């Protein structure tokens, strides 16, 4: 049974319109977000070094340490800085702590500075943590993540802990999301101290 | 502002009065069945006109010799003048329908008035739209159903249906009064919004209208079943009650028009609810159980509207769909809102 001509035209048009709608609804989801200009470490998706010339400038911040001493990031200019965002409540930070203590002791002798940013925490809890884990470097108290907010416009901080390596010119050279491993951190620091 | 308890009592008194007047109205409509005159001539002739209209919707271009082509004779006076009948005014039609109908209509109107006063005074007593919990909701929705049905009875001369629809209103209102009576009180913060008046008003009106449609649908199915039994020789024709009811075609049209009135109101209520949900909860649609069932009801009524345009689904099956729509609505009110925890848990029952 032949289908009349105009009908067939409608069918084609209808099919095209339908396909267009489906395309809008479904196909966009095939895209995925991702930034360029970085080199991932060991196939990881949360640890990477910025390529030369693409390192963003670290925003300056100032505040008080857990013991009340004033501190500002700008006062570290000229040194390589390891900035560690952590909290005493965070399991991954607690499991990372022994590694970080070892690396800090070893690298501080080479002139690398370590600074913690203690988030969503109280000073009493954080000081008990520092005492318990023999942490030898200071931390800025940041209970409401105002420091994180400044950085989040520059680097994609999503996990706690997150470790940033800042080079001598104040640019962010690398980011490690989640607990950092000894080899990861030392190899990044070797490259950053060598380059600048 | 504190709740005005005295006014709350006035509201309750008016509601009980409405309930009693409604009961008398139902008795009057029943009296019309028992003692009233048989089917009115005017109504019968209207049915005939309709039947003719249906049969002649398609006109043959080369049909039989046309009735008006051979008007022989001289002078304008010989041309038969026929003008379409101007419908009788509603009041005259009621007066012509006999004492029982007159009493039923008068009592229904008085009942609706008392009912409306009860709803309004409740609103004044609590300083807000008077549908913040299940008891208030049922009271208001039956009020809207009664007002709407009163209008249907006047507009479509459907007082033969009064005993059934007003009867159902009496039963539901009576159950609400005895089982889930809730004293006048203030609302939880979640309901303190002008969207309560907009969203719940629309939902209440639509529920009242759908209630009338469902009652018409049930009557349709009863008449349809009786007609088929008569056709099959299983029942004797000439049942007095059935003969007084409107024809199947009239019932079908009445129910359809009722749904056509209720569906946009329900749609508006759902949209208003979405706007309120966005204002209160941060999303306009979240598949909360009550939202989900409002959606199901909407889909089923949409299916009814489409079923009437689908071969094989007109008539009886379409009315099953329509009644199913009201069942999902009633299930939402009586089961989902009361027993399933969600963001709409405001019923305040039990």
């Amino acid at each position: 049974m032949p289908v009349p001509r105009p009908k067939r035209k409608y069918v084609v048009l209808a099919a095209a319109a339908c396909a267009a709608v489906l395309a809008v609804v479904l196909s966009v989801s095939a895209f995925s977000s991702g930034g360029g200009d970085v080199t991932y470490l060991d196939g990881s998706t949360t640890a990477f070094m910025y390529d030369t010339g693409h390192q963003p400038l670290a925003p300056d911040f100032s505040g008080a340490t857990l013991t009340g001493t004033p501190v500002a990031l700008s006062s570290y200019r000229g040194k390589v800085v390891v900035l560690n965002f952590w909290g005493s409540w965070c399991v991954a930070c607690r499991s990372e702590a022994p590694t970080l203590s070892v690396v800090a002791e070893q690298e501080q002798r080479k002139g690398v500075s370590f600074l913690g940013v203690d988030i969503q925490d109280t000073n009493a809890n954080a000081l008990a943590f520092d005492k318990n884990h023999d942490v030898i470097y200071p931390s800025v108290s940041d209970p409401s993540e105002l420091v994180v907010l400044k950085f989040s416009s520059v680097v994609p901080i999503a996990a706690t802990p997150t470790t940033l390596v800042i080079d001598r010119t104040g640019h962010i050279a690398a980011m490690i999301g989640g607990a950092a491993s000894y080899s990861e951190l030392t190899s990044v620091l070797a490259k950053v101290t060598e380059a600048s | 502002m504190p709740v005005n308890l005295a006014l709350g009592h006035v509201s309750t008194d008016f509601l009980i009065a409405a309930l009693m007047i409604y009961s008398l109205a139902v008795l009057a409509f029943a009296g019309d069945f028992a003692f009233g005159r048989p089917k009115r001539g005017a109504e019968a002739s209207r049915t005939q006109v309709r039947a003719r209209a249906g049969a002649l919707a398609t006109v043959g271009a080369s049909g039989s010799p046309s009735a008006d082509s051979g008007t022989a004779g001289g002078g304008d006076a010989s041309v038969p003048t026929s003008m379409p009948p101007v419908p009788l005014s509603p009041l005259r039609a009621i007066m012509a329908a006999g004492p029982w109908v007159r009493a039923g209509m008068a009592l229904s109107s008085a009942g609706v008035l008392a009912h409306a006063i009860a709803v309004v005074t409740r609103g004044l007593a609590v300083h807000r739209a008077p549908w913040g919990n299940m008891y208030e909701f049922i009271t208001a929705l039956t009020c809207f159903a009664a007002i709407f049905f009163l209008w249907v009875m006047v507009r479509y001369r459907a007082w033969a249906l009064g005993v059934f629809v007003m009867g159902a209103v009496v039963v539901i209102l009576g159950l609400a009064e005895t089982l889930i009576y809730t004293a006048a009180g203030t609302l939880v913060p979640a309901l303190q919004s002008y969207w309560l008046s907009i969203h719940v008003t629309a939902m209440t009106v639509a529920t009242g209208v759908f209630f009338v449609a469902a009652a018409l649908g049930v009557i349709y199915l009863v008449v349809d079943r009786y007609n088929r039994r008569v056709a099959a020789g299983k029942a004797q024709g000439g049942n007095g009650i059935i003969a007084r009811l409107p024809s199947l075609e009239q019932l079908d049209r009445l129910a359809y028009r009722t749904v056509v009135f209720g569906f946009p109101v329900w749609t508006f209520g759902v949209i208003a609810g979405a706007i309120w949900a966005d204002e209160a909860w941060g999303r306009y649609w979240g598949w909360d159980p009550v939202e989900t069932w409002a959606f199901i009801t909407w889909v089923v009524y949409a299916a009814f509207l489409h079923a009437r345009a689908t071969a094989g689904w007109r008539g009886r099956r379409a009315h099953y769909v329509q009644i199913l729509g009201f069942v999902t609505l009633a299930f939402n009110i009586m089961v989902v809102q009361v027993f399933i925890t969600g963001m709409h848990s405001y019923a305040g029952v039990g």
Partner: protein
Amino acid sequence: MTDLRPAPEVDDQPAIPVPDATFGVCDWLRWAWRQLTSMRIALILLFLLALGSVPGSMLPQEGTNAAGVAQYYKSHPTLAPLLNHLGMFNVFGAPWFAAIYLLLFASLVGCVVPRTFKLAGSARTLPPRAPRNIGRLPHSATYATSLPPGPALEVSAGMLGGHGFRMRHSGDGERWISAEKGYLREAGNLLFHLSLLGILVSIALGGLFGYKADKLLVAGATFTDTQSDLDEIYPGRLVTDSDFAPFSIKLDSFSASYVQSGPQLGQPSAFNADVSYTTSPGAPVKTDDIQVNSPLSIDGAKVYLIGHGYAPIFKVTSASGQPEYNQAQPFIAGTSGDFLSQGVVKVPDATPEGLGFSGVFVPTAAVSPDGTLESVFPAAANPRVSLIAYGGNLGMNSGPTQSVYELDMAGLKQLAAQPHVLSQGQTWKLPDGKGSITFVGYQQWASFAITHDPGQLPALICGMGALGGLLLSFLVRRRRVFVRVAAAPSGSGSVVRFGGLARTDASGGFEAEFASLAAELRAAHEQQAPQQETGD
């Protein structure tokens, strides 16, 4: 036979050919498409859509009630995995549910697109010729007028034109007019269906580019709109860090008022969250009072007050007086409304070993006859806590992320046999030199939902479009009327025959409209009639 009724709107497709052995791939595709776009299949899909939604309201859903899903797994260990496999805990995101609505929308498109062309076509073509026998139409009128046929027809055209009818005039020799009105009905119908399609696209837009997040905030604390600071984030597929507006909000104070007497005793009457906020670091600080029905709008995002509770403040010190813990810890209340709240305190860095407490907070305490703590009012008039103390390894130095509302009991031992009740300011000295815990006081907390949905406005516009389309299609009726004028048999004046019919008359009333049109037409003819003819 000519069908005079305005074009039917549905169900007019020719019969779908029955598949047979000669069917090729194209035939089968065409057959499937025509099946899909038939009203019968659309009806079945509508029923499936309604039926498919039911489990989504009966079973707990992951998106809205994750705890309920976990509970269901516990109580139905064999059934739950099976249901999960069928997508029953995420019905509205399940592939089979998507299949139903996508097929339904495909069917809708297949139905609406041809009808759009048909409407455009019918707006260009004129109504059909007037029937020879107008008296057979559902509604008709006949009367004589002293006007000659020519002018009588002109008067008719003037009257119908004045009512906005589209007219077709007869050629030479015949005297008739056919007129049609109500094209907006079909336009409304199409608008309604297209708007539904628009709503689906808007929802997809919100799902791809929007986000929703939750944050619990103790009074006095601040949070920032960053992925690490928010408690739970449900981002759309295409959301990136830069989509989060860089605002921060401080909860200055939270207050809840309750009904103090009468049958509604303890029912909340008002919640107010006083906040101060900045839209970006360094921007000026503004203040707002967030209430349940009054969210705060910042920079394309909205912040809603969705919950509240108490956060008792505890101080833990070692046996030597060294502070080890000092924090307001949010406790979570059940659904009963009395704000008897539960929570835990974790002190992983306590000496000589880690300490954990599981506790109950009651805002207004009363001791029941059997000695247990009861809450009699939701406001904090007489706050008490009851604590059970544990010592050992809290399991926080390695392993998976822990909930802040539960203790990992694997490495813990209970320190005292009985729970210990503290009122504000009291200290419990733990046995065996494990230190002490002080119930310092309490703070209130409020929880907020932060949402950003770019599909919101398009969805609203489409919703309004759907409603407008619905009203048009229900209120407007498509109807045709016909006028035929013939010379009167007597030779002077003419006979006017007027008829009409409506295709669909959803809200009724064509009968009355026709009667009034007929009366108006007759009056127009009488007014124009030459006066001297009347005495004839």
